């Protein structure tokens, strides 16, 4: 994995994947691999983008693909991207936040999944 991207997986009540650094066409494949592993487990998944410094179309495609994979495996997915960040704005521009709920913090995303585990 290029050293511009760091992915840390934390197993708590839900799986939390922290993404640090820059996600682009060179690093997106590694991110896709790590997220796919997590999405296949069937445990609710939080993808924390709050420390991602750059995110391009390749990264958006990864999230789109992971949303589909998570759905296949019964994994519920939530993103963390602070409301004033460039990445949150990007999610809004491509309307990905209509498909995957985005929250300002890991705590808020985790609470969303814990409080409403079946999405009701």
């Amino acid at each position, binding site marked *: 994995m290029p050293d511009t991207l760091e992915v840390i997986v934390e197993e708590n009540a839900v799986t939390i994947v922290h993404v640090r650094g820059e996600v682009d*066409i060179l690093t997106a494949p590694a991110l896709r691999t790590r997220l796919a592993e997590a999405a296949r487990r069937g445990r609710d998944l939080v993808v924390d983008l709050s420390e991602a410094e*750059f995110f391009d179309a*390749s990264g958006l495609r990864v999230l789109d693909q992971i949303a589909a994979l998570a759905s296949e495996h019964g994994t519920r997915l939530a993103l963390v991207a602070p409301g004033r960040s460039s990445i949150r704005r990007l999610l809004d521009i*491509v309307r990905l936040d209509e498909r995957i709920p985005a929250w300002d913090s890991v705590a808020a995303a985790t609470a969303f999944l814990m409080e409403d585990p079946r999405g009701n």
Partner: protein
Amino acid sequence: MEGPANGTPTHSHPSVGSDNEWTTIFEDVAGQVPFQAIRAEIYRRAREAGFPEQAAWDLAMAVHEAVVNAATHGSPSRHEDLVRVQHRVRRGFFECRVTSRNLAWELPPPGRPGSLSRPGLGFFLIRTFVDEVVLDKDSGRSELTLRRKIPR
């Protein structure tokens, strides 16, 4: 996003607000394209030209997507044999030109792609973040020029 991360060849850069000739930020004929360093340099020059942080980030993103498209023609495994990135300030616009020998380069129809996994997402972002996108083909090369008005 800050300055160039890993030795992108850069040349003298323009003084703020004044017109200048094209300067080459990057040129490659065979090897790896340093995407991170190129977008960092665009961000730096955009800030220097007077763009606020968010707009400079937008410009860096737009140029980055153009360079990715030029370098890979949509596939990371296929590298074109020429990628050149140039910049100038002209008539109040921040301009970047990305050159490729990829003559199959075409502008997709405007609008958000129906699926993020379909082709066209990169150009949708480019069009979102700049005022004008022009594709010229001449002498066996494609040149994509991106323009955005510099704030007063």
